[in-house]
């Protein structure tokens, strides 16, 4: 176990290193550099050459990388050319919204998926199972941006039940109940769009897992000992099938990041996904790079945590 833990954690280091090099190289290939954004167009060419030398932009690339990664590790992500603020501040302002939306999508999707998965697995081939399997096909096949647009069109524009954009009513004061309610209200549509489709993996996993476990020997033993059917499920089958779901959380991060880009753009929700899109459109690359780096690092760390939890829950995986 300890060996596995150690090995799994060590893999993460080259992954993070390669990610940072990739992003650094991408940044280098981007038109313009950090200096361009800080100077007006009037600055003459000679002065630029001088400043470039001073800023170390003519050094060999590995030295530049070393300086860059050193700053990143110390939390200095540079300055946004468009907003004229520190990238950390920009991200800090929006990261809360994205985390809130992601958490709310995850919770709602589990609240839907776990009962449905259990029902479909326990009563296989019943009409309920058929409906659930159908729903799951739909959830798998429907593209997020089309579904989100339809939700926005139906519940936001046509029925006008929920706000069509933003994360909170600007008139609400921070700290009041009204503020919290308004935040919740703004979360409803994006959460609905994200969560209803995100159920796919969990439902399918649970259903298959329960169907497989149902016919295992230990379940037969429990039944033949006279354990009531209800208890066979709650104490013997579900316990085995539900635990790994907790471990899948970390794997969801990559998907949530991708989803947040679509959801935040469609529901004009001020989070990191929207910041990413506006920054790339205005060529504000220092912000873009940091967002990609943070997202990539979050996904790498999340995957590692998931692997560790999964190996703890299911010892068979450790051998791999």
């Amino acid at each position: 176990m300890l060996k596995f833990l150690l090995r799994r954690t060590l893999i993460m280091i080259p992954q993070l290193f390669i990610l940072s090099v990739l992003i650094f190289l991408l940044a280098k290939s981007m038109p313009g550099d950090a200096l361009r954004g800080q100077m007006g167009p009037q600055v003459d060419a000679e002065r630029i050459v001088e400043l470039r030398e001073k800023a170390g932009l003519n050094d060999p690339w590995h030295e530049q990388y070393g300086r860059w990664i050193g700053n990143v590790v110390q939390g200095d992500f540079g300055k946004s050319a468009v907003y004229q603020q520190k990238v950390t501040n920009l991200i800090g302002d929006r990261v809360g919204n994205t985390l809130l939306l992601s958490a709310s999508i995850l919770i709602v999707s589990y609240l839907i998926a776990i009962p449905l998965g259990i029902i479909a697995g326990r009563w296989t081939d019943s009409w309920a199972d058929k409906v659930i399997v159908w729903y799951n096909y739909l959830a798998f096949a429907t593209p997020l941006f089309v579904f989100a647009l339809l939700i926005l069109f139906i519940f936001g524009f046509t029925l006008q039940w929920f706000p069509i954009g933003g994360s909170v009513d600007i008139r609400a004061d921070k700290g009041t109940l009204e503020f919290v309610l308004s935040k919740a209200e703004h979360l409803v549509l994006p959460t609905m769009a994200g969560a209803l489709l995100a159920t796919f993996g969990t439902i399918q996993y649970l259903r298959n897992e329960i169907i497989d476990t149902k016919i295992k020997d230990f379940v037969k033993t429990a039944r033949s000992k006279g354990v009531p059917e209800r208890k066979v499920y709650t104490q013997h089958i579900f316990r085995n099938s539900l635990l790994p779901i907790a471990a899948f959380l970390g794997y969801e991060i990559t998907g949530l990041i991708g989803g947040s880009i679509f959801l935040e753009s469609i529901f004009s929700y001020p989070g990191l996904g929207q910041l990413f899109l506006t920054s790339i459109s205005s060529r504000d690359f220092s912000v873009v790079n940091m967002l990609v780096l943070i997202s990539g690092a979050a996904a790498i760390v999340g995957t590692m945590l998931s692997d560790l939890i999964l190996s703890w829950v299911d010892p068979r995986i450790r051998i791999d």
Partner: protein
Amino acid sequence: MTVNMGNEKPVTDSMQPKTTHTSLGKTMWREVKNDKMALFSLILLSAILLTVYVGSYLLDLDKINRIDMFNIYAKPSADNWLGTDYGGRDIFGTLIIGAKNSITIGVVITLISGLIGLTVGLISGYFGGFIDNVIMRIIDFIIILPFLMIVIVLITVVPVFNVPVFIAIMSIFLWTGKARLIRSKTLAERELDYVNASKTLGTPNWKIIMFEVLPNLSSIIIVNMTLTLAGNIGIETGLTYLGFGLPETVPSLGTLVSYASNPEVIQNKWWVWLPASLLILVIMLCINFIGQALKRAADARQRLT
């Protein structure tokens, strides 16, 4: 040559019935036929494909692309079946051309990334050991990356951006899932007696891979290609929706949907964006329903009958 044929024959004969191909095709057709949704999807999808490809051939491209400022955002009428967009261009025509582009590009991406995934997966799974280890670490890494963000960044920074570049960028990332699947199946296949027998008889590795392992994976490959095709069309239209997909000169279904980011359009001008959205949805659902039926055909435990 004769020696090899002599070697292969008894092996293939004992492992697979002579009718492998017809039987795979037959099983697949039976599954689709017995599943009403899949059959309906197949018919609908064929109708859509026929309309789109024949339609785009018959339509007058110049007429569709002509900007008509006196006729912007016109409602659906006999002249413009689905109305017109912000430049007075015919939506129905754009829809047909867009669907053609989206489907064609989806198919090309699926084939290219499928070919890469297949090659890498077969090599990795068949030879195992060090190569396998390295390839799997690379795949693990690519799968973790925030795909959407990196693709958007790449599309923004490439000096020249056109359809082939778009296809290339997508293919760099989308082969990994397939490679992983094929690798795990090849790994299982490699342990079977027919492969060992062939090796003992001195059949070269590439021949075992191409003519013995590969045919046994064909059903999985077909199923996986079908399902990823739907996914790839979704990714392409999604990126185009965000403004980072096909260039504007090459309309996609996503181009029409992207007009919905204008609140005025999404609220009052449904004919601009809704048909394209629904068409994407219908195409993806059809492909998926067919794919699920094929999946059952490929896996005996899941078959309906």
